[in-house]
């Protein structure tokens, strides 16, 4: 089995790396070079024209800012509220705790589609349509991070919480100083999950905004795709620009996650 490990891993790497390679090369090739369909293009064929065209077509940089704001707001809020909820669901004993957890979990089964129209009407009635806040508003709290952190907190030794309580630490102090540092791997996982979902969101930001300046970069990217004949190089260049923060987030976060998990195991 060990002998198979390297070829299997190599195959998996190829499966992941190949689309990235195609995206990279296509983004920097002229339409003629793309049409030629060469797997290993001549380096002299590379050009920055597509990136330039993508940046010219839509206010990508402005929309980058909106996406970043929405991502920070949404992910930050989700992790904060999830930590508070998970703490309440694990440590203090209170009647109905199990039912509350079941209700959180039940929301995971609700299809996102069914909440679109009610959310649209609610946000519109608040007079917030076409604002950056409206993009993040319905997603400031989410069930999955609550579930994730609840499981992580439940795995922590309860004696630590009891010791903190005996020492006179309040709930907030216990959460911030004791519980969260011990569960930092899971907190990072929840933050990454929330941030990726926020950055990649498309339909809701499109639905609730009208002005280019209030829109996220994913909505801007869609403008490069034309129903009756796109220029692949420009679309790939835009995709690459939009993809970069996500890739960086995963690469940096992955290292942190591994360290956090390793620390727990030791």
């Amino acid at each position, binding site marked *: 089995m060990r002998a198979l490990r390297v070829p299997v891993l190599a195959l998996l790497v190829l499966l992941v790396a190949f689309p990235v390679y195609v995206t990279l090369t296509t983004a920097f090739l002229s339409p*003629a070079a793309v*049409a030629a369909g060469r797997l290993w293009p001549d380096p002299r064929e590379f050009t920055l024209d597509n990136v330039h065209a993508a940046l010219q077509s839509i206010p990508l940089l402005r929309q980058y800012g909106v996406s970043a704001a929405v991502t920070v707001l949404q992910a930050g809020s989700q992790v904060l509220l999830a930590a508070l909820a998970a703490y309440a669901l694990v440590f203090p004993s209170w009647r109905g705790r199990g039912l509350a957890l079941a209700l959180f979990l039940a929301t995971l089964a609700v299809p996102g589609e069914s909440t679109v129209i009610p959310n649209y*009407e609610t946000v519109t009635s608040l007079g917030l*349509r076409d604002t950056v806040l409206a993009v993040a508003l319905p*997603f400031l709290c989410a069930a999955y991070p609550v579930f994730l952190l609840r499981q992580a907190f439940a795995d922590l030794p309860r004696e630590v919480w009891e010791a903190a309580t005996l020492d006179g630490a309040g709930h907030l102090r216990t959460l911030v100083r004791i519980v969260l540092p011990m569960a930092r791997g899971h907190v990072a996982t929840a933050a990454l999950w929330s941030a990726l979902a926020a950055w990649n969101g*498309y339909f809701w930001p499109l*639905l609730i905004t009208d002005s280019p300046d209030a829109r996220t970069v994913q909505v801007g990217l869609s403008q490069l795709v034309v129903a009756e004949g796109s220029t692949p190089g420009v679309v790939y260049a835009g995709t690459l620009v939009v993809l970069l923060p996500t890739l960086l987030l995963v690469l940096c976060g992955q290292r942190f996650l591994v360290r956090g998990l390793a620390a727990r195991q030791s």
Partner: protein
Amino acid sequence: MRHPTRRAVTAALLAAPALAACSSGSSDASGAGPSRSAPGPDALASAGPQSVVLWHGLGGAAGAALTAVLDAWNAAPGTPGVTVQAVYQGNYDDVLAKYTAALRDGSTPHVLLSSDITTGFVKDAGQTVSASALATANPGDLDLGALRPAAKNYYTVGGDLLSVPFNTSLPLLYANDALLSRAGVDPASLTTVAGLDAAARAVAAKVPGVKGFCHPTADGWWFEQVTAAAGDLYVTPDNGRSGTGATALSLGGSAQREALELLTKLHVDGTALVVGTNGDAAIQAFASGQVALMFNSSGAIGSLAKTGATGWSTHPLPLSGPAGTSGPLIGGASLWVDGKHEPAAQVAAWKVVSHLASAAVQERFSQASGYAPVNVGVDDSPTQREFLAKNPAWAVAVEQFDSAATSPATAGALTGALPGIRSVVVPAMDKAYGGDETLDAALDEAAQAAGTVISDYREQAGL
């Protein structure tokens, strides 16, 4: 947290057409949809400045061209006091999803540019006022007689032009001239589906490593094209244009059946290249000389030109039915004026629509975007003649547009269920093209599934 996907949300939103159809007071009893009465110029004259919002789904060069035209309008308004703001709302599916959501809270735009296949849905929503009514009430604006019959035909129900075609594409057959020459194929033989079949087979047999034909099944448009080119109806009765609309998919025409059989055989025996649903993949295959003949929209001319490919030509859609009734279907989108806004806003919106369909704007937009001009006045323009002389591929599309037969078959299917019909017909036909199912089985499957889609839609829309 989960963000719903676009396709799922569109499906979810379209599953509730009744919200629109039933909530409207302007829908008439026969389901003809838009109101037939419209405000006239007095409404605008007695009101203050108007700001018109236009929603569209045009990206790339077409979106930029539309923005440029409207920026010019705002900078030097054709009508004092009317300004217009164009808002991109995603692709055509997204535009419809957003429009459906907006119907709920009355936040629909003054003008909606919606794709051809959404015509039935927007009509059933009953929120719009017909172009015929607006043109009658405002004789000083757009002359509907200046619009090409083939374009008007698609958007007309019971003699009432519901919306004004703006960006109009046409189906074309693209040919690699050198490959046809090497195979000894006379381009004059490409006027029929049988000729296309013979040409594709000749190329595949005589030119090593090259496929004869490719056909992006992208969105079901091509199955509708094959049906119209056979002179047959796609939905019954009367392609959904009489009574209370379409009740079933029609796959019974003999010419339609023969054409589909030829295309299926080309794929099953490997003469054709399977490019799947991706129109861009077809363009790349054609541009790189992997395939000699290609069905694609006239909108692909620009993309193909950008690849630097040379030695190709365009030809009208090959027909398989009678000359007088068979022909191409248009694609693209049309402009709808919302009837729920104040009368002054409706007239202002109509002035914007009139401007966008005018000969001058259509020429400018067409040349910048690659769509065909819908106004016949463009034909008299010296600059357009010069443009077509330099762009023969484009001239074929315009000639085909102008000479297309106008019949119930070429009017195309009119039903709000059309997006849903496409979503079941394409997978069924892909099974036939892949050799996984016989054509008969695929057609039966498509007809049954489409029947369910249509009856569900009719029930939800209260038709």
